[in-house]
C-alpha cells in the first residue's frame, strides 16, 4: 500500500508537491470538513434532505481531484462533494441539491462535473464514454470517476473496467474504500484481498494507496492522470480510507460496527496527519488554522445563504426540463396542473 506520509505525519518517501500546494490542499480539506459538518447539522434542523457525510475521506477526494486539470471530467457520487468542489462545483449548488432542488444539478458551463450519481455503479461507465468522447474530439481531457468499495460489487463496475481497458480510454477509476457499503463490511463484500488487485482481471494497472495520506493519493492520482492523458489507458486506484460518520443522516452505525473501530480510524484522521506534517516543516500554526476555519466557515455560510435564498420555482418547470422542447403530452399535462392549481 503506497504511503508517503505516515499517520504521525512523518515522511516515509519523497513528497509529491511543495509546501505551497501542500498548504492549499490542507486548506481545502479543512473547508471540506466544515462543509460536511455544516450539512449534517442543517439536515438535523430539517433544512436538508438526507445527507451522506464524508468525514475521514477528505484526503482521498482532495488529493485525487488536485491531480486534475480544469477541463478534466469528474463523475462522482452522493458522497464526493469535496472532489466535485475541487473541480469547480460551487458549494451552494451542492447544498441546493441536498435541499432537494434539481437546480443543484446544474453546475456552471465551464465546470466539467456531472451532478452526483445516486445509483451505485452505473456512473463509472459514463466516465468511460466521456473519456472516449474527449479522444474522439481531440481534446486532452481525462475523466476521473469516484465510487466506493460497495460499487465494485455491481456488474457495471466490471463492464466499465473492461470497456475502459479494451478501448484504452483515459479514465481514472478512483475507489474510496471506506470499509463499508452501508452496513456490509469490505471483507463481506468480496474475497479478493484488495480492491486494487481487481484491475488485473482487465489487464489494467491497479494501485492501493493509503487514502488518508494526502500525498500518497496525490502521487498515485497524478501518475494515473498522466497515463490517461497520454493515451496509455485507464488505472484503478484503491484509496483505503474510512467513513467516520454514518452512511447517511438516517443511518445508525452502532448496528454494524463498534466504537473501537471508529476510534482506531479517528487516530488516522487525514487532516490531522497533514497538519502534523505541515507543523513539523513550520508551515502550520494555530493562527493560520483559526484563519482557515473562519474563512471556511464564512465561505460555507455564504453558500448556505445562497442556496436557501433561491426562490422556489413555479410547478411548470417540471414539464420544461424533460426534453429540449416539451412534447404535446407534457404541454397538456402542464396545462392540467396549472388549472388544478387554481381553485
Amino acid at each position, binding site marked *: 500500500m503506497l504511503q508517503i506520509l505516515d499517520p504521525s505525519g512523518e515522511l516515509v518517501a519523497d513528497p509529491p508537491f511543495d509546501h505551497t500546494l501542500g498548504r492549499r490542499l490542507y486548506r481545502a480539506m479543512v473547508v471540506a470538513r466544515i462543509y460536511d459538518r455544516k450539512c449534517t447539522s442543517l439536515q438535523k434542523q430539517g433544512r436538508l434532505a438526507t445527507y451522506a457525510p464524508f468525514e475521514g475521506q477528505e484526503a482521498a477526494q482532495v488529493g485525487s481531484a488536485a491531480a486534475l486539470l480544469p477541463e478534466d471530467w469528474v463523475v462522482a457520487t452522493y458522497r464526493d462533494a469535496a472532489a466535485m468542489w475541487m473541480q469547480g462545483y460551487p458549494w451552494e449548488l451542492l447544498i441546493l441539491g441536498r*435541499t432537494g432542488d*434539481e437546480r443543484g444539478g446544474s453546475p456552471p458551463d465551464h465546470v466539467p462535473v456531472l451532478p452526483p450519481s445516486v*445509483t451505485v455503479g452505473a456512473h463509472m461507465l459514463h466516465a468511460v464514454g466521456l473519456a472516449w468522447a474527449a479522444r474522439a474530439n481531440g481534446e486532452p481531457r481525462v475523466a476521473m470517476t469516484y465510487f466506493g468499495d460497495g460499487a465494485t460489487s*455491481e*456488474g457495471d463496475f466490471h463492464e466499465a473496467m473492461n470497456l475502459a481497458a479494451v478501448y484504452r480510454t483515459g479514465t481514472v477509476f478512483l475507489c474510496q474504500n471506506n470499509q463499508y457499503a452501508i452496513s456490509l463490511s469490505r471483507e463481506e463484500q468480496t474475497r479478493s484481498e484488495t480492491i486494487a488487485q481487481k484491475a488485473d482481471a482487465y489487464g489494467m494497472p491497479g494501485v492501493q494507496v493509503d487514502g488518508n495520506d494526502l500525498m500518497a493519493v496525490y502521487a498515485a492520482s497524478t501518475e494515473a492522470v498522466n497515463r490517461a492523458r497520454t493515451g496509455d489507458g485507464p488505472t484503478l486506484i484503491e484509496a483505503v480510507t474510512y467513513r467516520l460518520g454514518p452512511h447517511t443522516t438516517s443511518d445508525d452505525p452502532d448496528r*454494524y460496527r463498534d466504537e473501537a473501530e471508529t476510534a482506531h480510524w479517528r487516530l488516522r484522521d487525514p487532516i490531522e496527519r497533514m497538519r502534523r506534517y505541515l507543523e513539523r516543516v513550520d508551515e502550520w500554526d494555530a493562527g493560520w488554522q483559526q484563519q482557515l476555519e473562519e474563512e471556511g466557515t464564512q465561505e460555507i455560510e455564504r453558500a448556505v445563504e445562497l442556496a436557501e435564498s433561491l426562490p422556489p420555482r413555479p410547478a411548470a418547470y*417540471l414539464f420544461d426540463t424533460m426534453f429540449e422542447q416539451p412534447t404535446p403530452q407534457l404541454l397538456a399535462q402542464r396545462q392540467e396542473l396549472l388549472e388544478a392549481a387554481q381553485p
Partner: protein
Amino acid sequence: MTVLNLAQALNQALDTALDRDKRVLVIGEDVGRTGGVFRVTDGLRARHDGERVVDTPVAESGIVGTAFGMAVGGLRPVVEIQFMGFSYPAFDQVISHVARIRNRSQHRFTAPMVIRIPYGGGIGAAEHHSESAEAIYAHTPGLKVVVPSGPYDAKGLLLAAIEDPDPVVFLEPIRLYRAVKEEVPEGFYTVPLGEARVIRPGADVTLVTYGAMTKEARQAAEILARDQIEVEVIDLRSLVPLDIDTVVGSVERTGRAVVVHEAPRTAGFGAELVAQIQERCLFSLEAPIRRVTGWDTVFPLKRTEHHYLPGADRIVAAVRATRED
C-alpha cells in the same frame, strides 16, 4: 391482536414465514444487521440467523439471479430491493428468467419467490428513491404484482405471496410504512391475491386505486361526502391477477370512474384499467373515465414533489369534473 403499522405487519409476516417454513429465507442489501432501510426486517437476523436472513453486496442483478436459483432449487427466497429505483439493474433477471422459467420448462421448473420493493414518493427522498414502476412489472407476463395499502392486508398478502407457487413482485408504499396503524392478528393468515377490496361504498362515482394512493382517495371521498357526493373507493390490492369484476360491477352502478395512481400517466396501469372498464361497460359510462396520476416527468426532488404527487385535491377536482362531463 396488536395494533401495528404497515412496516411492523410486514416484519411479523416475514417472522411468521421464517418460523413455519424452513425453505423461506430473506435476502437483500442491509436486511440483516440493520434490519433494512425501513426496518421491515428488523430483528429477523437475530431470531433466525445470518444463513436465513442474508446481508448481500450491492448487486441487484446478482441478488435476484441468485434468489432465482434458490427458488428453482427448492427454497422460498424473499428478496428485498432497497428502493424501486434500484430494481432496474435486476430487470433482466426478472423479466427474462424469474417470470419465464415455468413457461420455458413447461412446469418442470418453477421460481416461487417474492421480490419486495418499497415504492412511491412522498418522503422527500433522493433521486431514484420515489419510483412507481408497477406498470412495467404488470406488463411482464409471468409475474404477479401485489400492492398492499394497510397493515392487515400487508401481512396477509405477503404471506399469501410467499406461499404462492409463482413469482410475486410485492410493492410496499414507502409513505404508508408508518402512516397507517391497524389491528393485526398474530400468527399465520393470508389474504388471497387477486381480490380487490371496496374500502368505501358509494353510488355516484367509482374511484379505483391501490397502494399509497388509497389514502388520498379516502380523503377525497370524505371531502366529497360533505357535498353529498358518494364515492365508491376500490383498493385493487393486486394488479396481477386483476379483479376487474369488482371494478366493472361498481362502474355499472355509478356510471362514472376515476382511476388514480402515482406513476407517470403514459402507459401507466391506469390506462389498462380504463381500457378494461370501457371494454366491459362502455354503455354504462356517463362520462369519460378520468386519470389522476403522476406526470410524464422524472419524479421531482423534495422541494417540488408536492407538484407531482396526486393529492386529495386533484382527485376531488377530477371527481367533480367527471360529474359535469
